């Protein structure tokens, strides 16, 4: 067995007397695509922030090389009058962390253009960032994460406000990256269906515990009923996963 890229051991997180994560333990291997699912407030984003090193866990430990993390944060729309172009946002991924004013070489410029084209945003590259739609900004954020040649990709609801066609573009790009460069992908989402074909394992954070395994191992009536502590039904409708009966209706794996 090769060295895992991310090791999470006995991770616990509590805010006051509210326990979000308890004894969470798993490993992520090179090239793996892991979906993190669960209702709102179950700790999906907190887990990402712990992986990023921006949040201290209450117990346990995380081992991961944080020097080249590609991060797609949960969508936050930019101010309308921000003096920045789409390509400037993407460029941050390439050299935003280096000191000095810096000049782009011709090959850097090409690399930025290529990655922008790969998310279908070539026409948006020179437009003011603040005037782009949420979905357009989101695609540029994915480009920003990819251009940094990441050793790990962490994405928080990266498909939010994307239409079906662009959801597929983004999923295909992340899938390509982990296959060609072995970059593991940790993909936080409320809806597993757009990534059903590419996901290796699912980490489900429920109100009554967590489970990790293949889609079929985790997303079934028995497991989710245990994680919710109530009867939940998991159905397969035309190849899609539909969860019925969770108290948090919003998190249902929608059939779009």
């Amino acid at each position: 067995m090769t060295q895992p890229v991310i090791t999470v051991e006995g991770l616990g997180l509590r805010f006051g007397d509210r326990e979000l994560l308890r004894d969470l333990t798993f490993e992520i291997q090179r090239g793996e695509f892991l979906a993190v699912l669960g209702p709102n407030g179950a700790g999906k984003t907190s887990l990402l922030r712990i992986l990023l090193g921006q949040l201290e866990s209450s117990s346990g430990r995380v081992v991961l090389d944080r020097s080249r993390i590609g991060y797609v944060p949960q969508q936050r729309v930019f101010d309308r009058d921000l003096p920045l172009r789409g390509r400037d946002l993407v460029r941050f991924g390439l050299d935003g962390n280096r000191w000095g004013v810096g000049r782009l070489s011709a090959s850097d410029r090409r690399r930025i253009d290529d990655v922008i084209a790969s998310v279908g945003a070539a026409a948006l590259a020179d437009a003011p960032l603040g005037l782009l739609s949420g979905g357009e900004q989101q695609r540029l954020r994915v480009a920003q994460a990819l251009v940094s040649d990441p050793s790990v990709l962490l994405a928080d609801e990266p498909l939010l406000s994307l239409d079906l066609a662009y959801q597929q573009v983004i999923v295909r790009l992340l899938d390509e990256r982990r296959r060609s460069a072995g970059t593991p992908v940790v993909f936080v989402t409320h809806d597993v269906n757009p990534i059903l074909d590419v996901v290796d394992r699912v980490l489900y954070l429920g109100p009554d515990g967590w489970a990790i395994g293949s889609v079929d191992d985790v997303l079934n009536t028995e497991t989710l009923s245990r994680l919710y502590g109530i009867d939940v039904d998991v159905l397969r409708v035309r190849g899609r996963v539909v969860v019925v009966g969770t108290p948090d209706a919003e998190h249902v794996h929608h059939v779009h």
Partner: protein
Amino acid sequence: MFTTLLGEHFVHTALLAGAVVAIVSGAIGVFVVMRGLSFAVHAISELGFTGATGALVIGLNPVAGMIGGSLAIGATLGVLSLRGRERDSAIGAVLAFGLGLGVLFLSLYQGYATAATNILFGSIVGVDDAQLGVLAAVAALVLIALAVLYRPLYFAAIDPEVAAARRVPVRMLSVAIFLLVALTTAEAIQVVGVLLVLTLVITPAAAAQRLTVRPGLTLLLSIGIALVSTEGGILLSLAKAWPTSFFISSISFAFYVAARIASYARSRG
């Protein structure tokens, strides 16, 4: 009269000092506007007034007191790294108390009232060679720091979450930008005075941002507008004996209004 004045040494010194301060103010202004720190700049500037009057009372150099006051509040705001509404109200509270202190110091100060007036409204023509040297040295320091921090500073200002994930020292940069703003403010006070600092640190950058979305060009335009406003203002005040600060703020405001009209016209296609 105007042409005779143009030959005077003190006028040359004033023009040079104005240029130095305009360049550094225009440059830092871009980051101030991007981070939404206009109100913080105003507070830093007014606390400079408190520092200056405090120094006068105990018989110290008012410029040293001003720099001390600005740096103290700048460092405090940077370390606290407050956000949004909380930052807004905290600055308001500190600013009001600082001004109260300033009023007390002013009433305790028995000396020549011009010293205080100069701090409030600026005294560019009063700058001597030694002061010009200090202005230039501080400006060089700020510009070098901005050049070194440039890329991470931009990244952290626009996208702090992702910048932190890429191991940009976001918190350190927040303290650094406040200290640089404090130094710049102390510079600008000597040209336009406490009450008009925003005319050099905010207005040119705000105008530049209306004209372009290219980061490099925004910086150059901001510096350019600050330069034209300052030098133009000094020259106009030689021709007509109204306060220099009035002319400087009028020119930079004219740029701002023109930039807004231009961007409005462009957005309507």
